[in-house]
């Protein structure tokens, strides 16, 4: 079974430029998460989807961040414009309570973003 797929793996951009990250969750997982992880810290939840509905986006900086999961499968996270402080690893995770009985989150490899 394929795991959570993310692309790109690395991205270097200049500040004020836009950037987008893509995530394809594990097949059949209806819950999708986007996290941001700064160096030496734990992942911080940005947004959580149940199918195509964003059920928790309280930590998403909505002035510059946006996300979508139009068909309830893959998802895109966008930053526009990027700022220096956005440099971090952006992790996508998916879970399926029904499959595991426990809401285990399976993480993708992440996208390492560097804003210059």
């Amino acid at each position, binding site marked *: 079974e394929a795991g959570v797929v993310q692309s790109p793996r690395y991205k270097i951009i200049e500040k004020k430029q836009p950037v987008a990250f893509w995530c394809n969750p594990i097949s059949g997982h209806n819950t999708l998460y986007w996290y941001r992880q700064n160096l030496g810290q*734990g992942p911080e939840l940005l947004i959580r989807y149940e199918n195509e509905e964003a059920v928790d986006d309280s930590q998403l900086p909505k002035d510059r961040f946006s996300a979508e999961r139009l068909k309830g499968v893959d998802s895109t996270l966008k930053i526009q414009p990027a700022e220096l402080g956005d440099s971090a690893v952006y*992790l996508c995770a998916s879970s399926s309570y029904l499959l595991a009985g426990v809401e*285990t989150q399976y993480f993708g490899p992440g996208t390492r973003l560097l804003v210059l």
Partner: protein
Amino acid sequence: GQQVMQIPQYQHVQEGEDFTTYCNSSTTLSNIQWYKQRPGGHPVFLIQLVKSGEVKKQKRLTFQFGEAKKNSSLHITATQTTDVGTYFCGVTGNQFYFGTGTSLTVIP
């Protein structure tokens, strides 16, 4: 809001020594999860604890949930170099929160 603290932040041990990390919450938890993140890698789910006082074991790893369901611990017996990484607890409040993590270094 939810506050989850882990101690210690860093731990260096000689290979073969034991290691323990603690996760403490300011509020009562419905459950707690533990994840391991290798250097340069992504978090990997280890276990979930639900019941008060619950103890679960995975080979050399022992996980415990406090009686008051406000704290938890992860203990590794006889560490190996493969145990290197950062161990995070994760809790569900109004959203899912990761703890601050404990970075484990094992010296061969």
